[in-house]
């Protein structure tokens, strides 16, 4: 209840801030549609030349694009803007005020900036996923849909946990401004099924920076490719990741001594 109230306050503040730049918002939405067109054109060029990519057909690739955009929306609407704010607050010491507030600091650091217009991308993502699954002609059973949803959430939690750890490193290495670049740069790899990449890239995007866990894996569940055992492993991994991230965050906060104060 408490958290919902806080989130709705953050939403209100961010809507007000974005209303100051209405033209910008409109241009951004147009650009967003343009990129969607480009991505679909890219897929159509690929599938003009082949019928399967990494074992998947065009419908499945469109659904994967939807899942990718879902994750990308989370990153672009919440994670990146808050990273910027967080890094700024470490530099100028304004993190002090965040820590003094009577709410968990990890929560405040995660949600204080929200890029509102990005939310519309959620709608597009869902349309892509539904259309893609239909095109693929897969019979998605209710159980498959349920595991798909669970694994999308757990994949998002894994990436979120990695992000918390990366920004928490700033407490130890103050000049670590590039803390999230590796996540940003590799995110694009999530557009395609992980099976198309060479083995060493697969290892990086599955274990090191587990983007595949949030994109390829949920879609495998939707296709019914995953055994129950593996689904449970992925769910367990996300719980462990979230727990480990909160520990690292706490240890980091302990180290924080404030800048310029």
């Amino acid at each position: 209840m408490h958290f919902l109230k806080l989130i709705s306050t953050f939403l209100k503040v961010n809507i007000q801030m974005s209303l100051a730049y209405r033209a910008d918002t409109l241009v951004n939405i147009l650009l967003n549609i343009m990129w969607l067109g480009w991505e679909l054109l890219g897929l159509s060029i690929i599938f003009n030349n082949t019928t399967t990519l990494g074992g998947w057909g065009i419908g499945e690739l469109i659904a994967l694009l939807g899942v990718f955009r879902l994750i990308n929306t989370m990153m672009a609407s919440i994670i990146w803007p808050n990273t910027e704010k967080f890094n700024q607050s470490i530099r100028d010491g304004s993190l002090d005020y965040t820590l003094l507030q009577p709410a968990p600091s990890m929560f405040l650091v995660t949600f204080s900036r929200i890029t509102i217009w990005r939310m519309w991308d959620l709608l597009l993502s869902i349309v892509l996923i539904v259309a893609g699954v239909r095109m693929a002609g897969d019979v998605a059973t209710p159980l498959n849909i349920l595991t798909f949803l669970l694994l999308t959430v757990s994949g998002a939690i894994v990436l979120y946990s990695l992000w918390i750890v990366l920004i928490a490193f700033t407490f130890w290495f103050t000049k670590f401004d590039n803390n999230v670049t590796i996540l940003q740069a590799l995110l694009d790899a999530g557009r395609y099924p992980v099976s198309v990449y060479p083995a060493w890239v697969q290892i990086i995007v599955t274990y090191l920076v587990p983007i595949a866990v949030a994109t390829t894996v949920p879609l495998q569940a939707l296709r019914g490719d995953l055994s129950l055992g593996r689904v449970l492993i992925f769910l367990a991994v996300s719980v462990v990741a979230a727990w480990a991230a909160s520990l690292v965050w706490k240890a980091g906060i302990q180290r924080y001594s404030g800048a310029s104060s």
Partner: protein
Amino acid sequence: MLNIFKRLWQVNWAEQWQYRANLIMYLLYWLVSPIIYLSVWTSIASAKGSVNGFTAGDFVNYYMILLVADQFTSNIVIHNFAYKIQDGSLSGELVRPIHPMLTNTLVNNLAFKALILVGFTPVWLILTLIFKPDFSGVTWQGVLLSIPAMLLGFIIGFLLSAAITSLAFWTTRVYSLHEFYYAVILLFSGQFVPLTLMPKIVQDIAQYLPFQLFMYYPIQLILGKLTTAQIIQGFVVGLVWLGLSILFFNFVWRRGVKQYSAVGA
């Protein structure tokens, strides 16, 4: 004038050298998308034998050379100039008797390139060990011809980016417009896929645009895949665009500077 360039080089090199830690991060960004496209296309080509005449090996060669061509033809004008118009810090440069864009910004781009090359060379060599491109088709004539082609590509790209960045004299913020321009490059330069695999209409238009000079044209020159007629046509189109981009940049710049109101300064 030579002295001015020498001094600007010292300043800009020192400035770029400060950010050498960011080099690794920049290299990471620059590597990811070509490696993704390389993987996608080699996986298709090895499943089917070849795609429209391109074997898996051909795609590896193409994207490995693309990494090099992109290094030489790209620029960072928007990152290094747009904010100066936005926060008014351009004023100080405008009162100097030299052209801010064609001296300071140009030299800054070159210093950035020089620094990047230091990190780029070992990374590229490691990648050639991993992907094992076959450069037996590369000829000396091709490499020699690609140098003026990439130079042309760099100058045209620099002038077009400079002109688009200068639109900030009117709009203050110009990043959205630049993003649109970037998408056009992505479509017509051959970055996503060798242009011959693009839909026919894209290929036809790309022939008359300058963007293939950034990647596709120099790559194919180096790999020795162009006929003499195609080589001549590429250079002619490039020279025409060189003229057009000089006119375009001059037009935007002259009017823009008059429009400039030194926000915040």
